[in-house]
């Protein structure tokens, strides 16, 4: 069974994001970029399936600028077998990404595609569900546990009320939540080995997809700032302020 893992290159989660002065977006120059944390969880899960003998090959796919190859290399260093890079310089929206991933899936014929539930830059939480729709496959989103069966997978999902378990027919889409696993760090020998693993490069045109965004971003602004608060000396002062000043208790 082949597993496909889409990995997105995003601003590292530790970076304090700054809005550009001209309000066209956020500052990307000289900012540390990393693999979307949810995608690290996807890669880890795929590799574990391979280690368990369930998966035979793990293919990492990234769509975007040339440097996405670094993100793919990270997946290869963790243990993915090969990479696919769809080169595109402009902004990509989830629908366009899903369409291109669909074309990749049709070529590669995986039984399972594991995506992150959400990219921490656009916070869209769409791509996996959209890909499932375009392929006509089932979707097990926000997964915290995956049990592979024959022809189906049993997936525990994190939902607002707690946990839900569904059974999904294969081939299927899974999107990962935080509790699915703890991603490994790549070892130095594996980082060296990853340099020799193949990465195929293609373009949106090769996949027959128009990647142009549908939404027009009119402006990007800083959120409203909170007024600086005060420190209270003790619990008594806190309770008094909450009762008499803020009047919230």
């Amino acid at each position, binding site marked *: 069974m082949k597993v496909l893992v889409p990995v997105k290159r995003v601003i590292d989660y530790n970076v304090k994001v700054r809005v550009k002065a001209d309000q066209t977006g956020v500052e990307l120059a000289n900012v540390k970029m990393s693999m979307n944390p949810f995608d690290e969880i996807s890669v880890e899960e795929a590799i574990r399936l391979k280690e368990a003998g369930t998966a035979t090959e793990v293919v990492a796919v990234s769509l975007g600028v040339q440097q996405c190859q670094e993100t793919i290399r990270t997946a290869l260093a963790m243990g993915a077998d090969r990479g696919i890079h769809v080169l595109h310089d402009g902004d990509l929206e989830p629908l366009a990404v899903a369409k291109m991933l669909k074309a990749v899936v049709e070529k590669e014929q995986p039984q399972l595609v594991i995506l992150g539930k959400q990219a921490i830059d656009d916070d869209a939480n769409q*791509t996996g569900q959209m890909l499932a729709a375009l392929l006509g496959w089932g979707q097990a*989103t926000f997964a915290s546990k995956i049990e592979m069966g024959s022809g189906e997978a049993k997936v525990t999902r994190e939902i607002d009320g707690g*946990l*839900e378990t569904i059974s999904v027919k294969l081939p299927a889409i899974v999107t990962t939540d*935080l509790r699915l696993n703890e991603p490994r760090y790549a070892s130095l020998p594996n980082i060296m080995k990853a340099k020799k693993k193949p990465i195929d490069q293609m373009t949106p045109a090769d996949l027959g997809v128009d990647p142009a965004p549908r939404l027009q971003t*009119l402006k990007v602004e800083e959120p409203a700032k909170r007024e600086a608060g005060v420190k209270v000396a003790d619990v008594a002062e*806190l309770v008094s*302020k*909450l009762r008499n000043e*803020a009047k919230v208790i």
Partner: protein
Amino acid sequence: MSVLVVAEHDNSEIAPATLNAVTAATQIGGDVAVLVAGSGSSAAAEAAAKIAGVSKVLHADAAEYANGLAENVAPLVVALASGYSHVLAPATSFGKNVMPRAAAMLDVQQISEISAVVDADTFVRPIYAGNAMATVKSSDSVKVITVRTTAFDAAAAEGGSAAVEAADAKGDAGLTSYVGAELSSSERPELTSAKIVISGGRGMQNGENFKMLEEVADKLGAAVGASRAAVDAGFVPNDYQVGQTGKVVAPELYVAVGISGAIQHLAGMKDSKVIVAINKDEEAPIFQVADYGLVADLFEAVPELSKALDG
């Protein structure tokens, strides 16, 4: 213009988040219809008809809608969408699961988690964990949108008298089946709609210590939440998580106990009206957003707080 709101419900009651989505729909303008897709869900459909501002309820009742599976609900939404300029759902785990599937089937780029309506085509949404607010304009023929519930007041649950119309079911897609659920049960208010929330972080040290927070919560009529670190460590279940990738809350009062204030946590609570932080590290970033900060050991401060609330 006419807006379809996909209701979240449990077949008997309408989830509060649906009421916030209805308010977003009324701000867009035009008639507001609500879709109730369920099984044995007449009570939910009747409840939807009473929501103020709703002019019509579409009720699809069939076994395949019993558990809100996206593979079954999305084709129904798609079949109905052509009659509407906008299709909305609350940005809950249900809405986030179903709506992008419907959007892709409609060949529409969904707009996730809007926090404001500028006009019928233009919306504001947070990106980068709320560190930036993007104003985006859609030219798709149907706009598919999820709604950040904390950004819109709840519509009145009573006062409307919409007609309930039956909608044809679309059958079982046969791709997924529901196995079961383990839902957290609590007498306390629901986290996302509670007026007061008290959350614990890694500083709580273990699940047992959360009892201290529960005691305070019960005195205040509050819900209990947590940081990711507290959930990952197994102190409390996943549905307690507040943040960028958990729940977004905006209560009157949010009390953060033993939480450092990572950007991903702030994303889920910084729109609260009043924020209190209790942390022993005076440098903790949570103090930068707190209206009232108490630098103290939580194991002393929380029991003291509990006692003070008795007086």
